[in-house]
C-alpha cells in the first residue's frame, strides 16, 4: 500500500531543515550527562528574570485565544522604536515572517537574490513557492552590493541581506546598504535580517537601519526575541516595514500565530535592560577570550558582530564536530551552508567557552 495523493512538485527538492542537535538527543546517543550546547546561538545567561516572573504568573487565561495582532506588544515596541504601530508585524519566530513573505510575494517565475552561505530559510521559502534563487558570491565574507544589485531583474521580489549574516558573523556598513537600496528595483524588497541586531550595534560602524525606512518603502527589517532577549524557546520575532508591505502578509498570517506565553514574556523582557546589558557584556568578553584561544590554536576565524564565531579548520570539519560531540560539546556543522571546512560555535558562559576550548584542544591533538 502506498499513498496515491500527489503533492506539490516543489517539495521534491526539499529536505526538512536540520536544526541544531538537542541536548537530550546527544545525552541519549552518547550516554553523556554533562553537555555544553554551543550550537544554536541561544542566550547563555538564560531568559530575563522579569520574563520568567511574568510567564510563571501567566496561567489564568490560557483558555482564551491570544491577542491576534500582539496589540500590547505592538504599541510598546512601536514607542520604543519611534515608529507607527502599523509598521510592525509579529511572527511565531522571525522564521515565520520569512515564510509568510515568501507566500505573499513569490510565485513561479519570480526570483530572490541571496549571498552564498546565506541562512537556509530564505532559499527554502523560494523553493516552497516555486521561485528561483540567485546566489551571489561574497567579497571577503561580506555581501557584494554591486553584484547583488546586478542580479536583480523585474521578477526579483526579495534581496535578502542578513546583517550580520548567520553563520558568518560579518556585516556590511551603511554605505553598502544604501548602495543596495539605491540599485535594487522598486519592485523588489530589500530584507535586512537583523536577528543579531542587539549584539551587532555594539560595533561603532554597524548601521542603524531604521533611518533608512524614511526614504525606502521597499525596505523590510527583521528582528527577533530569540537571541539577545533569550526567548528562543517561546518563538517570537518581528518585522518592520511600510504598512502596505504587511497588508498581504497579514492576509496569509494565521490569526493567532503568536502564543500568549510568547507575548507575555516578550513584553516583560523588553523592560529588562539590565539582563540585556549582562548578555552583551558576557558576549563581548567571551568573544575576546575565544579569539585569543583560537589564535593560540592557529585556527583562522571570521571576526564576528554576533554571538557566534565561524571557525575555519582548513579540512573537512565533520570529524572534528563528531569528536567534540563525543566530548560533550555540541557546536554547529555548516555543511548545508556550503562551508564543509568550518564549524560555528556560539559564545557561551565563561566556563562553557573554557570547556569548548579544552575539548577542541584535545580533539586537535589526537
Amino acid at each position, binding site marked *: 500500500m502506498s499513498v496515491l495523493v500527489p503533492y*506539490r512538485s516543489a517539495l521534491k527538492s526539499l529536505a526538512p531543515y536540520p536544526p541544531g542537535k538537542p541536548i537530550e538527543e546527544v545525552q541519549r546517543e552518547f550516554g553523556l550527562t554533562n553537555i555544553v550546547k554551543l550550537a*544554536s546561538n541561544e542566550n547563555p545567561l538564560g531568559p530575563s528574570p522579569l520574563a520568567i516572573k511574568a*510567564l510563571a504568573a501567566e496561567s489564568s487565561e490560557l483558555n482564551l485565544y491570544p491577542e491576534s495582532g500582539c496589540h500590547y506588544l505592538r504599541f510598546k515596541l512601536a514607542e520604543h522604536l519611534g515608529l507607527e504601530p502599523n509598521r510592525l508585524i509579529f511572527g511565531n519566530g522571525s522564521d515565520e515572517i520569512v515564510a509568510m513573505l515568501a507566500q505573499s510575494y513569490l510565485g513561479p517565475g519570480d526570483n530572490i537574490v541571496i549571498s552564498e552561505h546565506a541562512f537556509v530559510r530564505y532559499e527554502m521559502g523560494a523553493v516552497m513557492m516555486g521561485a528561483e534563487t540567485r546566489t551571489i558570491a561574497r567579497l571577503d565574507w561580506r555581501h557584494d552590493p554591486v553584484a547583488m544589485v546586478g542580479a536583480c531583474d523585474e521578477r526579483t521580489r526579495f534581496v535578502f541581506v542578513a546583517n550580520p549574516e548567520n553563520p558568518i558573523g560579518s556585516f556590511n556598513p551603511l554605505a553598502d546598504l544604501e548602495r543596495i537600496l539605491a540599485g535594487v528595483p522598486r519592485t523588489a524588497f530589500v530584507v535586512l535580517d537583523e536577528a543579531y541586531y542587539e549584539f551587532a550595534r555594539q560595533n561603532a560602524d554597524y548601521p542603524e537601519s531604521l533611518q533608512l525606512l524614511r526614504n525606502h518603502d521597499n525596505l523590510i527589517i527583521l528582528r527577533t526575541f530569540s537571541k539577545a532577549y533569550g526567548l528562543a524557546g517561546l518563538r517570537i520575532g518581528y518585522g518592520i516595514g511600510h504598512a502596505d508591505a504587511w497588508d498581504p502578509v497579514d492576509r496569509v498570517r494565521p490569526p493567532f500565530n503568536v502564543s500568549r506565553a510568547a507575548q507575555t514574556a516578550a513584553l516583560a523582557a523588553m523592560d529588562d535592560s539590565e539582563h540585556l546589558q549582562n548578555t552583551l557584556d558576557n558576549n563581548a568578553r567571551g568573544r575576546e577570550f575565544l579569539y585569543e584561544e583560537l589564535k593560540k590554536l592557529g585556527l583562522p576565524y571570521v571576526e564576528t558582530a554576533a554571538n557566534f564565531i565561524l571557525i575555519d579548520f582548513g579540512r573537512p570539519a565533520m570529524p572534528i564536530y563528531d569528536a567534540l560531540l563525543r566530548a560533550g560539546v555540541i557546536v554547529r556543522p555548516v555543511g548545508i551552508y556550503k562551508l564543509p571546512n568550518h564549524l560555528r560555535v556560539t559564545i557561551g558562559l565563561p566556563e562553557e567557552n573554557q570547556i569548548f576550548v579544552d575539548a577542541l584542544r584535545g580533539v586537535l591533538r589526537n
Partner: protein
Amino acid sequence: MSIEINAAVAALEAYVPGEQPREPGFVKLNTNESPYPSAPAVVEAVHAAATEAAFNKYPDPASRSLRQTIAESLGVELGQILAGNGSDEVLRLVCHAFLRPGSGDVIGMLDPTYVLYRTLAEMFGSSARTFATVAPDYAIPEAAYDTPVKVFFLANPNPPIGTLYPLEQIERLAADNPARLIVVDEAYVDFSGVGNASISLVERFRNVLVSRTFSKSYSLAGLRVGYIVGRRALIAEMEKIRDSYNLNRVSQAAAEAAFRATEYYADKTRQICEDRAFLTEALRRRGFEVPESRGNFVFARRADAAELYKSLKERKILVRYFSAPNLADGLRITIGTRTEINTLLEGLDALSK
C-alpha cells in the same frame, strides 16, 4: 509600494476571527473557547517551564515528548503525528503540501462550515467547491461523494451548526476516490461523544488525515497547539515544509500535561455537554430554532438575530454573528459556564420585554 503581490494573495480576504475584547467585563461566548481554566497539572507545567528558565533554548524541533504521549494513547506511531502552532498551522500545511499551484486543484467543503478552509485553499492558488447542507439534518449532499476534488475538508462536528457525521459517511467519502485526500477536522470531537473512532480510518484508508486541537476541550487556546494524524507518507511531506521550531517550549509542556489530565477535562467536557442541553432547551423555549449540536456551541436561529447580536453586545455579551445568507438569521453561541449562560438568557429576556 510597487511590489507585485502573489496573485492568489492579492485576491485573498483574510480570515476574520471572533472579536477579542480588551476591556474587562464581557461575557465572551463568541469564539468557542472553553470557559474553564487549565487543569492544576497544566498550570504547574507552565510554571515549571517558566521557572526552569530554559526558554532561552530553542524548543525540541520535533515536539517528540508531546507526540509520543499522543501516539501511545491513540495507538499510532510517532511518525504518524505532526504537531503544530494550533490546528490552523496543520491545516495550512495540508494545503501547502497537497494543493498544486496552476494544476486546477480544488478543495471540497460543506457550506456552512469553518471558513478558514476556503481562505487556505485560495492562499495556495486553489479554489473551493462547496456542498450546501440544509435543515433539518444538514446531511452531506450526494454530490460531495463523487465530485472530484483534491482535498475534502470535513469538520466533524461541523461548526457553526454542530452536526456530527457518522463514521460510515466519512468512509464513503474516503473510499469513493483514493486520490482524494479527506481531512477530518475534529476540533470539537471531544464534545461529540464518539471518542477516537475516526483514528481507525487512518489505519484503514491511505487518504485520510484527522486533525485535532488543544484550543477547545483542553482549555489551551492561548498556547496554540494542534496536531494531525495520518499515514507516515502523508505526514512526511508536511514535515518538509513545517517550520523547524514551530511549537514553543511552554506550549509543548502544557499540552502534554493537559493530555495526561484526562479526568479533569472529561469532567469539564461532561459539564459543557450538560449545559449545551440546558441552553438548547432554554433557547427553544424562547422561540429559537436550535439544531442538535455536538460541539461546545449551539446555532440559534430567530428572525431578529442580527439585531440581537448588537443589543447583546451593548450589554457586554459577545456571541458570533455571520452575515452569510444561510447563517444571517442565527447566532453561534459558545457554551460558557452556567452563570454565563444565565446572564445570556437574562439578557435575551430583558431584550424581549
